[in-house]
């Protein structure tokens, strides 16, 4: 778990207001708690519910003190959008870390105004390569609602074992703490549970 003398496992999450970073962050923290890990975290929103950037920090292990992950200090970066995947990979992903991201695109203003070219999937992959980091892209065409993209990403994190010690059963328990009814059933279905 340790890297570069740091004994906590640090996760930085990013997306755009409305994409469900709040649920993602809460479920990730609870999944780690169900797995018996000490968790500290913090959502940073500010004005971000207005289509701005939403980020969340999660630190695992008793050695974490501040709830905030340091720049270039994240063992794992989770992004729900392509521009934000590139942004976070560049600013928060540590050398040799892991990026997992959902390939949705919500164009920033500069791109819409033609002042900057759109970010491509290759740019995100190149960024990871130059940091010696591994890159996992998630893109599913079986989602009924884009608001399930956050759960699809968690499913991949669990399946690939990207959070040490935290497995599918812990994520499912976390979702059960937070959701009920149809939305819970839909989320569990993404984890392969029959409805």
């Amino acid at each position, binding site marked *: 778990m340790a890297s570069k003398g740091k004994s906590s496992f640090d996760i930085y999450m990013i997306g755009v207001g409305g994409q469900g970073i709040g649920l993602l962050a809460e479920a990730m923290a609870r999944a780690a708690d169900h797995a018996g890990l000490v968790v500290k*975290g*913090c959502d940073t929103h500010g004005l971000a519910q*207005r289509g701005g950037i939403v980020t969340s920090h999660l630190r695992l292990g008793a050695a974490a003190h*501040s709830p905030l992950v*340091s*720049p270039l200090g994240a063992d794992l970066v989770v992004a729900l959008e392509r521009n934000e995947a590139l942004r976070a990979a*560049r600013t928060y992903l540590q050398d040799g870390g892991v990026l997992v991201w959902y390939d949705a695109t919500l164009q920033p*203003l500069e791109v819409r105004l033609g002042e900057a070219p759109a970010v491509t999937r290759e740019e995100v992959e190149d960024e990871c390569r130059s940091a010696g980091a591994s890159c996992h892209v998630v893109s599913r065409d079986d989602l009924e609602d884009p608001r399930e993209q956050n759960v699809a990403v968690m499913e991949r994190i669990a399946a690939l074992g990207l959070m040490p010690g935290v497995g599918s059963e812990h994520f499912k328990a976390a979702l059960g703490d937070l959701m009920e009814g149809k939305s819970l059933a839909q989320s569990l279905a993404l984890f392969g549970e029959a409805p």
Partner: protein
Amino acid sequence: MKELGATLLRKDAFSEIVIGNTAVVRAMIEGGTRVVTSYPGSPTPEIASAIKSMPAAERPFYFEFSTNEKVALEVAFGAALNGHSSVVFFKSVGLNVAADSFVQLSMMDITGGMVVLLGDDPGANSSQNEQDNRHFARLACLPLLEPADAQEAYLMMKEAIALAREKRSAVILRMTTHVCHAKEKVSFGPWRPEALDRRPRFDSEGWNYIPLAASVLPLKRFALKRLEQVRERFEASPFNRIIDNGNAKRGVIAAGTARLSLLDALEGSAEPPDILELGTVIPLPRSLVMRFLSSHEEVKILEELDPILEAEIKSLAYDALLRTRIIGKVDPEELIGEYVPEKLRAILAATWPDLVAPPPSPRQAGRKVPDRPPQLCPGCGHRTAFQAVRAALEGSDITVADIGCHTLGYLPPYRMGRVLLSMGHSTSTAAGLSIYNDERRVLCFMGDSTFFHAGIPGVVNALFNSHNVTYVMMENGTTAMTGHQDHPGVGRNFNGEAPRIPVRSVLEGLGITNIREIDTYQVGKLTQAVKDAVAETGFKVVIAKHPCMLKFTREARRKPGWYARHVRIDTGTCTLAHDCVERFGCPSFQIIEGRAVVVSNDLCIGDGSCRQICPSGAIVNAERA
């Protein structure tokens, strides 16, 4: 968490993952708080969300959102005079509004005790400044506790409630953004409910509550004496701790979240300094600080924002002829922003280069990632209003912003509302801008919640002194920016039905007859109304009225028969004028292959307000999926 209300009301001790804002609510319950008041403002609104999660009939205390922070503080004060333990909470700059009453509190014998919970915002994450409200505690002679995380927020809130009750005083709990929102598993104690004492215990014979002229000085004497008693209590407080790393040379005194960032920065350090962690910041536990100073050769002080501890600690050392080298803020950057781990690491590395390495430099690679500034929601009525105002004005005219979602109009592509001070300032700043000004017409914006908060005096002044201002009331029927709290114009308060006080009725009651009221989405009519209003002299009101679309859509989704509505671009008609993208600026419009416009159905809410602005009429309602 789906069962938050039931969890908060548990009788037994338990632990749960919560944010600081939720943790303090459990402290209020366990601590016997009876009256809680607030005005919404980040980083504190989640305190009210946690309160709301408890069914009204089971809530052990009364809660209200008052019309502003000063009013909220006074309601909490009055309740405490009758013996009810009370809490008032609001954001950093809210204390400026409350200050006129707040500064009197230390002279009062507050029977039930009251806690003033502040959500300060170092880093200005969601505020117009990053003011350090510890100054206000000093000014007002009131004790202040400063937690670093959610567990401590809970424990210190309980201490603040108990201290306030014991000393019949006001006590400040100063949280900061990343304490309010920090989450961890917090261990809570049991709740032993006590019967509510309904006797109104206000006793004007037992205390002089009128601080006037000659009576002020003895009351101030009393306030200072009470503060000294609190200092004695703080000298032994468990919230101040020494971490003894056996380092006789170097020490650090740290408070607030800087304590946590410090511990992170020191991980793996071979010779870490000794640390004095301060949780009870005002009044300073002087003996404890002196013992720590005198047992080290060098002491660095780590406190976010202003050098308040530094000034007092240095003066203590001066008086005691101490030879310890005290290192305060050296670089002006140490006065600015949050003491996040990387910032603290940089400060520490500059202080003692052998102790820790500076944080890594930014990774150099690739082109700049496009910025993503906050923007108005898809379908927001403010966007349409800005279109109309822009069309009605000339380039040199002056537009004055106020606080609310519509503040975001200053960003491109609208550039509307170009000066901002505080809640409700716009009318009076506009009035000043209109003096000796016959060339550039002056228009100000204000939201309806802000109108009730601090907007009315400026309107009255504009009438009283005959100012030449066009006043655009952006009426969306809620307090949108902070999470849709009800305000006096809505007809509902936190606890249920309430008398509705329409903004228009208030304006008419003031004698204003020049009022134009237009549905915000009628861009042509609104443009004409603003054009007509700015051409007239005097105080003219244009009410742009429509419910907040975010709230409206969320509520509509829950109703039976709802289905997702969208617009689409009729590509045969579209002339690629790009007005929808470049002038209207709704984020739902995205560009593909450099030119063509498509509508993102993930963002579009189908309000259709954009259809009016397309010069070729290419935006059409999409067929039902």
